[in-house]
C-alpha cells in the first residue's frame, strides 16, 4: 500500500483515474485463449482448496488471528514481503522505471531494506515478547487505551478503504488489459477472498501470499530474461538507452540527486535518505500492522527476527521483475511500423482517445503480451490477479484482527468466550470485504475521492512510527505523551497536506525547495510529522510521571529481559544474514550509483 500510495505521484497522476478513462471504449491489450483461462481457473480452484483445508485449523482466536504462531521464518518472511507486492505496485513501478529510470529502485532498496532489518533485529523482540496481537495492541500495553484506540480506528478505517481502492483499481486493470467487466472482476475476486480468509483466517491469507509470491516470479521472471536476450544483455540495454535518450539519465540512482532540478522526480538525496529511507519506510515496514502481523505469526522469536531478514533479500531482488522490464520497455517496445514505441502520461492518452497510445503504467502488460505465448500469458495474468487477491486478503485479515482485539473487545464486549471472538473475526472478514466493495463503487462514482484516500493513508504512517519508537526506546515516555504525540503528529501531517493543497507555493517550505515535486512533498511531510510526534511525546512526558521499570518489562529497550535463545550454527543466525543483507544492499547502491 505504501507503494500504491506513492505510485500515483511518481507516475504523474493517478493510475486508476486514468485507467478509468482508458477503460471506456479502449480495445483490450491482451486476448486470452482456452489455455490461459484454464491457468486462471486452476488458481481459483487452488485458493479455495487451501481455504477449505485450513478451516479445521482456525478454531481458536490464536489460530484464526495469529495463524497459531506456527509459521516458519521462511513462510513468515515470504508472506511479509508478499503482502506488499500487489499487482498495482508491479505495474505502477514498472511504469515509473520506464518514466524515471532506475531511480524507481530506491523504493525497493533504501525504501525497504534498512527498515526491514531494523524491524527484525531491533524491534521484533519487543513486539514478540510482549505477545501483542497487533500494533495498536502494543500501544495499549505501552501507552494505554487512548493511543491504541486512535491507532486502531485509523488503521481499521484506512485499511478497509484502501482495500476498496485496490479492488476498484484491479478491476480497471482487468478491464484495460483483458476487457473484463468491472463488476465481474470485483464480485469474483472478492467472493474468493472472503471465502478463503473467513474459512482459514490468517493462516489461509499467509499461505495464499506465499503462493502468490511464487506465481509472481513464475509469471513475471520470463519477461526480463527474454527482454535482456532481445536487447543484447545488460550492456546492450545500457548502450541502447544512452543512444535513444542521450539527454536523460535513466541508469544512475544517486548521481542526479544533488539538487531537486537535476532529476526527473524532483527529489533531493536528503529526502530520499531521511524521508523515504527513514520516516516513510520505517513507518510502513515496522508499524503498519498489515505487514507486522505476518511476522508476529512466526513460531519463535528467532523465526520472527529472521523473517524480515529473509524478506529483505527478496525485496532487493524484486526490481529484477519490476524495474528491469520498465527499462527494457524503453528500447524493445515497438509500434506496428517497427519504430520505437513511446509511452506517455495518462493525461496525454486520455486527451487523444483512439490514437492507439499507451501509458507508462501499461509497460508491464505490454511486455507480457510481447513475449508470452498461450499459457505463459495466462500465468502472467494469474500473477497479477493473485497479487491483488493476496493484497486484499492481507487487508481484511489485518482489519479483522484489529477490529476484534482493539475495538470490539475493549469497547463492546470485554469478557466473551474465545469462540465468540473467532466468530466476530469471521464476520469482520466478510463485513470488511462488503465495505471494501462499497468503497470500490464509491471511488468509481466519485473519482476525486481516491486522491484523498491515498493521502489519508500516508497521514498515519510517520506519526505512528514516532509513537512506537519513543515508546519502545524511551523509559521516560508517558501515557499522555504517547497519546498527544500521536494525535498532534497526525494533525501536523494533515495540516501540511492541506496547506500545500490550498496554497501550492507552500511547497517551498514543506519540502524546503520550490523545485520540489509531489514525491518530495510526501517525504518531507512524513519527516516533519515524525519529528513533531517525537518532540510532543518528550515534551508532554516531561510533565508527567514515567511508569515504574517493572511495568515496562517486555515493552521498552533497557527494561526488558529478552529470553535466552538456543545457540545455533552461524548460518542460522539472524545477525549473520542481516550483515550479508547490508553488504548486498550497499553493493547494489554502489554498482548503480
Amino acid at each position, binding site marked *: 500500500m505504501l507503494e500504491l500510495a506513492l505510485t500515483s505521484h511518481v507516475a504523474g497522476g493517478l493510475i486508476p483515474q486514468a485507467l478509468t478513462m482508458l477503460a471506456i471504449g479502449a480495445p483490450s491489450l491482451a486476448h486470452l485463449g482456452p*489455455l490461459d483461462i484454464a491457468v486462471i481457473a486452476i488458481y481459483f480452484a*487452488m485458493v479455495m482448496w487451501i481455504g477449505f483445508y485450513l478451516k479445521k485449523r482456525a478454531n481458536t482466536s490464536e489460530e484464526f488471528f495469529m495463524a497459531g504462531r506456527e509459521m516458519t521464518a521462511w513462510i513468515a518472511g515470504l508472506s511479509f514481503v508478499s503482502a506488499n507486492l500487489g499487482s498495482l505496485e508491479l505495474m505502477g513501478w514498472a511504469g515509473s522505471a520506464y518514466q524515471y529510470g532506475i531511480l524507481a529502485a530506491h523504493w525497493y532498496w533504501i525504501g525497504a531494506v534498512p527498515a526491514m532489518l531494523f524491524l527484525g533485529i531491533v524491534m521484533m523482540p519487543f513486539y514478540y515478547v510482549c505477545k501483542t496481537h497487533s500494533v495498536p495492541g502494543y500501544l495499549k500495553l505501552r501507552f494505554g487505551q487512548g493511543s491504541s484506540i486512535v491507532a486502531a480506528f485509523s488503521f481499521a478505517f484506512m485499511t478497509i478503504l484502501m482495500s476498496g481502492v485496490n479492488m476498484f483499481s484491479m478491476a480497471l486493470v482487468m478491464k484495460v488489459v483483458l476487457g473484463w467487466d468491472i463488476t465481474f472482476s470485483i464480485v469474483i475476486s472478492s467472493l474468493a477472498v472472503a471465502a478463503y480468509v473467513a474459512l482459514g483466517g490468517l493462516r489461509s491469507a499467509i499461505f495464499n501470499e506465499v503462493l502468490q509470491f511464487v506465481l509472481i516470479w*513464475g509469471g513475471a521472471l*520470463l519477461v526480463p530474461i527474454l527482454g535482456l536476450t532481445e536487447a543484447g544483455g545488460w550492456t546492450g540495454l545500457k548502450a541502447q538507452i544512452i543512444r535513444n535518450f542521450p539527454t536523460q539519465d535513466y541508469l544512475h540512482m544517486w548521481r542526479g540527486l544533488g539538487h531537486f532540478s537535476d532529476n526527473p522526480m524532483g527529489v533531493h538525496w536528503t529526502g530520499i535518505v531521511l524521508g523515504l529511507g527513514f520516516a516513510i519506510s520505517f513507518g510502513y515496514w515496522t508499524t503498519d500492522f498489515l505487514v507486522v502481523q505476518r511476522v508476529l505469526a512466526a513460531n519463535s522469536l528467532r523465526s520472527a527476527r529472521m523473517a524480515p531478514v529473509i524478506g529483505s533479500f527478496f525485496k532487493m531482488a524484486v526490481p529484477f521483475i519490476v524495474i528491469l522490464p520498465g527499462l527494457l520497455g524503453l528500447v524493445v517496445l515497438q509500434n506496428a511500423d517497427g519504430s520505437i514505441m513511446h509511452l506517455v502520461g495518462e493525461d496525454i492518452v486520455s486527451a487523444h482517445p483512439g490514437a492507439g497510445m499507451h501509458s507508462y503504467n501499461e509497460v508491464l502488460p505490454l511486455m507480457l503480451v510481447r513475449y508470452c505465448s498461450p*499459457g505463459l500469458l495466462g500465468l502472467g495474468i494469474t500473477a497479477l490477479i493473485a497479487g491483488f487477491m493476496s493484497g486484499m486478503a492481507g487487508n481484511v485479515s489485518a482489519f479483522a484482527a484489529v477490529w476484534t482485539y482493539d475495538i470490539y473487545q475493549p469497547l463492546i464486549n470485554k469478557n466473551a468466550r474465545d469462540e465468540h471472538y473467532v466468530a466476530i473475526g469471521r464476520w469482520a472478514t466478510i463485513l470488511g470485504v462488503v465495505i471494501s466493495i462499497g468503497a470500490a463503487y464509491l471511488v468509481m462514482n466519485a473519482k476525486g475521492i481516491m486522491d484523498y484516500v491515498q493521502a489519508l493513508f500516508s497521514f498515519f504512517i510517520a506519526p505512528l512510527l514516532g509513537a512506537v519508537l519513543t515508546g519502545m526506546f524511551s523509559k521516560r515516555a508517558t501515557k499522555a505523551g504517547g497519546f498527544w504525540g500521536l494525535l498532534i503528529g497526525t494533525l501536523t501531517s494533515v495540516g501540511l497536506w492541506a496547506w500545500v493543497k490550498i496554497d501550492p507555493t507552500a511547497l517551498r517550505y514543506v519540502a524546503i525547495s520550490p523545485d520540489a515535486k509531489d514525491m518530495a512533498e510526501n517525504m518531507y511531510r512524513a519527516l516533519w510529522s515524525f519529528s513533531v510526534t517525537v518532540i510532543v511525546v518528550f515534551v508532554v512526558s516531561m510533565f508527567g510521571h514515567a511508569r515504574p521499570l517493572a511495568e515496562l518489562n517486555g515493552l521498552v529497550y533497557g527494561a526488558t529481559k529478552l529470553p535466552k535463545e538456543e545457540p545455533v550454527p552461524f548460518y542460522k543466525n539472524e545477525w549473520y544474514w542481516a550483515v550479508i543483507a547490508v553488504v548486498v544492499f550497499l553493493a547494489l547502491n554502489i554498482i548503480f550509483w
Partner: protein
Amino acid sequence: MKESEISIWFFIGVLLTIYGALILSYGIWELVTGNLANVVLARLHAPVWWGALMLLLGLFYALRFRPGKA
C-alpha cells in the same frame, strides 16, 4: 508446523506441476507442429524450457512435502 498438516510447499508443488505440465505440453505441440504463437522470440520456445522448469520444480516440492511423509 505440525506434522499432520499439509505444508504450503506441497500446495505450491501441486500448482507448479499442473502449470508446468500444461505449458510444457503446449510448448511441445508448438515445437512439433511448427505452429508458433505470434510473440517476439518465439523461436526460443520459452514454453518448453519454462514449462519443464516449472514441472521439475513442482514435482520436487510436491514429492518432498507430500502429506504423510515423515
